[in-house]
């Protein structure tokens, strides 16, 4: 059966630490952050930080400020700080997004709640293990498969190239897949290294559609054959959380609908 209760030792304890504001700090805001170390014999907790928001514009700035000035043990991923690498994807005030492109002015007033991406194994604090997510991405063969090798490059008309807009821009941050209830229930069902009875999730299916739409690709039949599965594709119930949260403004739900349309058309 689906797990409706939290796994052992994952329930959030009430032993969160409070970090008061520095003396003389103004423009204060409370930031509550999920903290968990699998190697420590403690359940996760939520720590509260009183942070001076002066000069802070993005959520990632807040995290860096906390790590630099208040608590160096806070762990999170970040790299490009401009919405290109997808490293800092996390759950901010209840919605998955990138900390580096989420402006503080978008989050209204009140406390800030920051958690790791939902339903993924936590490596530490806000860092999740995305191995399974990457395995699913690899499974849809996200690369060109052409029968012939041209002398120079594979040519493509402007119209065919336009079909890839809104598909190729995915940065694999996993915000969409980890916001999908169907992915929570059926995103990790396969055995190690195998994808069986497992939903591939919005991100992998968006990539699959990107290659199905590519006029230069010759593996369309094989790609559709691979996706025609009660679990890999048809666990999508058009919940639309994926489209709602995508920090790049992409529409994975529409891409999945496109794959289903292709399935129907080929009969």
């Amino acid at each position, binding site marked *: *059966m*689906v797990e409706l209760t939290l796994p052992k030792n994952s329930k959030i304890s009430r032993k969160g630490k409070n970090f008061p504001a520095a003396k003389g700090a103004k423009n204060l805001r409370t930031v509550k952050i999920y903290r968990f170390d699998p190697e420590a014999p403690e359940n996760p907790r939520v720590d509260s930080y009183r942070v001076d928001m002066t000069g802070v514009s993005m959520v990632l700035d807040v995290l860096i400020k906390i790590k630099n000035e208040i608590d160096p043990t806070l762990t999170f991923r970040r790299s490009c700080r401009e919405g290109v690498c997808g490293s800092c994807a996390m759950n901010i005030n209840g919605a998955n997004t990138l900390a580096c492109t989420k402006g503080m002015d978008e989050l209204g007033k009140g406390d800030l709640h920051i958690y790791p991406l939902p339903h993924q194994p936590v490596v530490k604090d806000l860092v999740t293990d995305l191995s399974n997510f990457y395995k699913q991405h*690899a*499974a*849809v*063969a996200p690369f060109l*498969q052409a029968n012939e090798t041209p002398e120079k490059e594979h040519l493509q008309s402007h119209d065919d190239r336009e079909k890839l807009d809104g598909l190729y821009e995915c940065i694999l941050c996993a915000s969409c897949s980890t916001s999908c209830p*169907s992915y929570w*229930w*059926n995103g990790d*069902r396969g055995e190690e290294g*195998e*994808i*069986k*009875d497992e939903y591939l999730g919005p991100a992998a299916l968006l990539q699959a559609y990107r290659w199905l739409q590519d006029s230069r690709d010759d*593996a369309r039949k*094989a*790609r559709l*054959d*691979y*996706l*025609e*599965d*009660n*679990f*890999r*594709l*048809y*666990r999508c*119930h058009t919940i639309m959380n994926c489209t709602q949260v995508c920090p790049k403004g992409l529409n994975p739900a529409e891409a999945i609908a496109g794959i*289903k349309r292709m*399935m*129907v058309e080929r009969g």
Partner: protein
Amino acid sequence: MAQDNVSISAHKGTGSFILQRITALLLIPLIIWLLYGLVTHIGGDRAVVYAWLADMRTVLPMGALLLAMFAHMRIGMQEIIDDYIHTPDLRSMLSFLNSFFCVLVGGIAFWSLLSITFTA
């Protein structure tokens, strides 16, 4: 990589996907027709309703309604089973019971309709 894994793809789901949508579309007018039929017979006695059910203008849409409804119900229940039951053996057993229940109850409903038609 996708080509390597083709052999372990279930190659199913599209048929149910299409059938679910067709039956959903069919059920919209059929349910409205049923409600209209029931409302117009409020206060009527058993003989009146019996005569209505035995009329060929009722039997055909009612038969279509039963067929679409039980097909739709089976697919809907199957979706729930696939979503929430992760143990393969239990899922197979519940899938069988789901189909069995829909065929059995749908069959009884169909048989009841026909028996009214031919005995009224």
